């Protein structure tokens, strides 16, 4: 009987540890440069670290895990109203900007907001392509518990991202460099 209990306790501890490990989310950043320097940068940060540290940072525009979006013409745009409207709307391509220098597309597809920016500055061979994929749950979290229209709740967004699971957040490609930011449950990027 004692032996059985010990074995059961062992299994329980093992399962709890396995669950605890698999529950950890990691944010990875990888920058690979193809120019003559040929530099590769890899950053691996546990999501729990970001969630713990963010509320403790008090700088100009970041307080208690919330950021004030100033500049970037934010005074002209009610960012919250835009995000709120998009979150309630059906799937569609909502923004399309095509110019000589760049094309921008913002679409809602299922539970994601997709942003695609192609910056070719007149030279299509050296175009820079930026793809951003943000879950709607993260967008909604950005708008929760904020006091004014220029404020975004980054901490709540991180928590939502943590709950969402594996995801490619940002990819950037240009002639010389590629950047990837993603979330998964592995502590290493490879």
């Amino acid at each position: 009987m004692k032996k059985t209990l010990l074995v059961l306790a062992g299994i329980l501890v093992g399962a709890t540890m396995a669950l605890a490990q698999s529950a950890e989310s990691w944010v990875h950043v990888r920058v690979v440069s193809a120019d003559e320097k040929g530099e590769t940068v890899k950053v691996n940060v546990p999501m729990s670290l970001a969630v713990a540290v963010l509320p403790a940072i008090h700088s100009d525009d970041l307080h208690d895990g919330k950021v004030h979006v100033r500049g970037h013409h934010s005074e002209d745009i009610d960012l919250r109203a835009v995000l709120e409207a998009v979150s309630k709307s059906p799937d569609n391509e909502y923004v399309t900007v095509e110019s000589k220098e760049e094309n921008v597309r913002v679409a809602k597809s299922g539970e994601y907001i997709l942003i695609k920016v192609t910056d070719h500055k007149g030279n299509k061979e050296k175009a820079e392509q930026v793809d951003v994929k943000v879950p709607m749950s993260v967008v909604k979290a950005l708008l929760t518990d904020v006091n004014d229209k220029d404020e975004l709740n980054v901490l709540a967004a991180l928590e939502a991202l943590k709950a969402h699971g594996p995801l490619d957040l940002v990819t950037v490609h240009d002639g010389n460099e590629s950047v990837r930011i993603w979330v998964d449950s592995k502590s290493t990027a490879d």
Partner: protein
Amino acid sequence: MISKIPPVVAGMLFLTGATAVTGAVMTYNAGSIRVSVEEKKPGGDHVHIIVPAILVPAAMGMVPSKELGKHAKEIQPWLPAIRAACKELERTPDVVLVEVTNPNEHVTITKRGGAIHIDVVDPGENVHVVVPLGTIQSVAERLAAGGEQEGPPA
């Protein structure tokens, strides 16, 4: 044989032994700061420094509070973030936090055990630095406390 040792000497021996063991345990728990620089050129310097982390707060106590005060104002706003980061890193599994590789240099910042390891390998030298997480926090706390002695920031 033991019965022939006078009680006073036995007591002193016991105290010395106990102090040494306590010191060893405290040093082991606090860890050590290790700095190692190896120049690759022929006849280059090899410098290895190991400082028990437990000595750092004492060493900082010798720094004039005026000097500490200068840095205190800068570090105080970041102290809660440093505390939170150290606490969270303590429970994070061992991991390579940052890795930079180019044809001339390989830099890694790793969390291993209760310490941060920084390794730089370049054509000229290998540098290896280990700082216990507890030391990072304690240095930050000491720096911030230095500012409090100087008075609140203007």
